[in-house]
């Protein structure tokens, strides 16, 4: 098996699950460095320059949240969090702390693969500076010219609606927590005012979605946040 892809760092304490993920990932031509503890993981993240981290939140030696916080002090390393607990609180906290995406155990390995690919793609895009144009399905967003089209018809957005859409576009495909959205669109003093987000999200959906109650693009991750769907269904 010849590994050609970027190095993936895996921090997972359960040996069976570690073996499964390593095998699956290597099978997809990624090289994998797997460790069982947060401490080893932090050292490996510094020494081996991985391209992406897959982090299990429940670790024996330290809290997964702690690993994220320490990493984020000095690194932009993309992080996918695995949580065995289906609790939105943990997930939201991990995302707010700086994780990029999450999966709840048990999950489909195909799902993990697509998340890894998407995240690596986004990282690859970043050095090229601001993206000019974003398109999915009928929705087209011209970021610098600040114009939005649905079905080639221009949609007029308010500045806040546009900012909201922009944040989601820049995080294309990945969930953005309520807190992050409120902070980026309205400012740090608004992080507790989630009703602003609901009202503007409603408005935005009415302008962009064909059926606002069953959105295609602006998806709700209940209890966590929102994400822009990058896949065309």
């Amino acid at each position, binding site marked *: 098996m010849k590994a050609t892809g970027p190095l993936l760092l895996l921090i997972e304490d359960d040996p069976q699950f570690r073996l499964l993920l390593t095998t699956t990932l290597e099978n997809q031509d990624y090289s994998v460095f797997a460790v069982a503890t947060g401490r080893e993981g932090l050292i490996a993240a510094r020494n081996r320059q991985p391209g992406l981290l897959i982090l299990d939140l429940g670790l024996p030696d330290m809290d997964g949240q702690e690993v994220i916080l320490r990493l984020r002090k000095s690194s932009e390393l993309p992080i996918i969090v695995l949580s065995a607990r*289906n609790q*939105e*609180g943990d997930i939201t906290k991990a995302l707010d702390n700086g994780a990029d995406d999450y999966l709840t155990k*048990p999950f489909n390995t195909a799902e993990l693969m697509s998340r890894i690919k998407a995240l690596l793609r986004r990282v690859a895009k970043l050095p090229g500076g601001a993206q000019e144009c974003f398109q999915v399905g009928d929705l087209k967003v011209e970021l610098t*010219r*600040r*114009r939005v089209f649905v079905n080639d018809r221009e949609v*007029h*957005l*308010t*500045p*806040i*609606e*546009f900012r909201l859409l922009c944040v989601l576009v820049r995080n294309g495909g990945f969930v953005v927590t*309520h807190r992050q959205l409120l902070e980026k669109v309205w400012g740090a003093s608004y992080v507790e*005012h*989630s*009703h*602003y987000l*609901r*009202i503007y*999200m*409603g408005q935005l959906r009415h302008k962009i979605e064909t*059926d*606002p*109650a*069953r*959105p295609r693009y602006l*998806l*709700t*991750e*209940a*209890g*966590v946040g929102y994400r822009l769907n990058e896949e065309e269904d």
Partner: protein
Amino acid sequence: MKSATNYSGFRQKHNYGHWLWGIAIPLTLTAIDWPFREILTASNILMFYLLGVFFVAIRLGFWPSVLASLTSAGAFAFFFAPPIFSFAIADQENLVGLAVMLVVGVVTSKLAENVRSQARVAEQREQRVSALYRLSKELAEARLETEIIAIGIRHIHAEFGCRNTLLFPDGNGKLCYPVNPSPGISLQEVDLSMARRVFDLGKTPEDPGALASEDKLFIALNGSTETIGVLVLEPVDFQQMFLPEQQQLIDTFINQIVHALVRARLAEQAKDATLKIQAEALRNSLLSSISHDLRTPLATIVGAASTLEADGERLNEHRRRKLVVAINEEAQRMSDLMTKILEMARLESGQVVLNRQWYAPEEIVGSALRRLDKKLKKRQVNLHIADGLGLVLLDAALLQQVLVNLLDNADKYSPAGQPVDVSIATTARGLSIAIADNGPGIPEGMQQKIFDKFFRIQAESAQSGVGLGLAICRAIVEAHGGEIQASNRSEGGAVFQLYLPLLECPPTIAPEEKELTP
């Protein structure tokens, strides 16, 4: 009875008024008879005096009436029996009459006194009986041990006029101070070592009936098999406390209190036992349900995986694929069951704190539908959203779980191709979300039961599930202060309707008029 008489006599000794009446009544009679001394015979006058003596005897007691007899005799001798104004009596007949009057007076006084004391005893008995009645009536209504103890202390205080307290052993079987003494009438400072001696002895020494220490009485409270506590009394009058009547009365009081306590304890034990049995039954149904529902998919997984491990190479590609798909599907099913079981346990443990935020209800419905995208692919879901729905304060993740469960049920229990209707509206009862299917509906009388844990209309139906989905829905909706109900539509099919109270008005935001200009 004798002691009661003595006791009352003791009390009357100091009543000088009675003695004065004993003198005053014969003297008054003398004054009344004096003008008629020419008409009346000596025996008539003696009869009048006798009447006075009777009166004193009946109203005022034995000794005043003896005094009245003697006064009457003196007055008769002095004023009526010749020679007048001298105590000498010349007439033989008058002398005999006077002697007979004295004897009759004393004898009738004695009889009257007996009648009086019997009446008094009867009255005291009646008082005791009614005190006991009041006590037993209150005790019969009391359910809690603390209530019974408070009632006991209060009634003993009222009847015997002394401060008292009831001491009971703590968890270690050691007698201790009451935790919540009733203020005022409850004794606060008690010599615990003395109380413990009485308690450990299991009875109070035979004589004087209770163990006395300084100014307190310690009486063991004996149940049918064991000593359950100690009554400590601080009598005002020790002598009175040791009277047999009082002893009997206090014993009866104690018996009543002990019986009430034993009854309350037995009732408590019976309740605990019932709860235990119910918990046991629930655990059993949980275990049998879980073991069946988890073992079935597990059997497939283990079987398919071991076949692949042992004979993987010999199977053709198609068969191998079938086994792998089976493993995947069954594992998914197990995972769903586990999630439900854990969710229910989490909700029941009371650890769930709602993360309430302002949400647009249609948004939650939308995300629930999205979650079931794959399952509902072939089913038409009609959304009816009322205009002007405001934001609602709710826990989005939990409410989404409710809607996913209800939609999943609607899909599971209605024939393929039949549409499912979801309606959201604001009603007088709050936000209403209704999910209606076109399936067979809910059998009559089951509308409530289907929300019970582990309840399934058909216990071993082809539909997988532990019977927790609706129980979870109910727990979540009730945690929001709302309610959920199931009914059948007149045109067929079941409808599940939930109401969430709208307690607060949604916050408003400053409008943003300006449109984006490129």
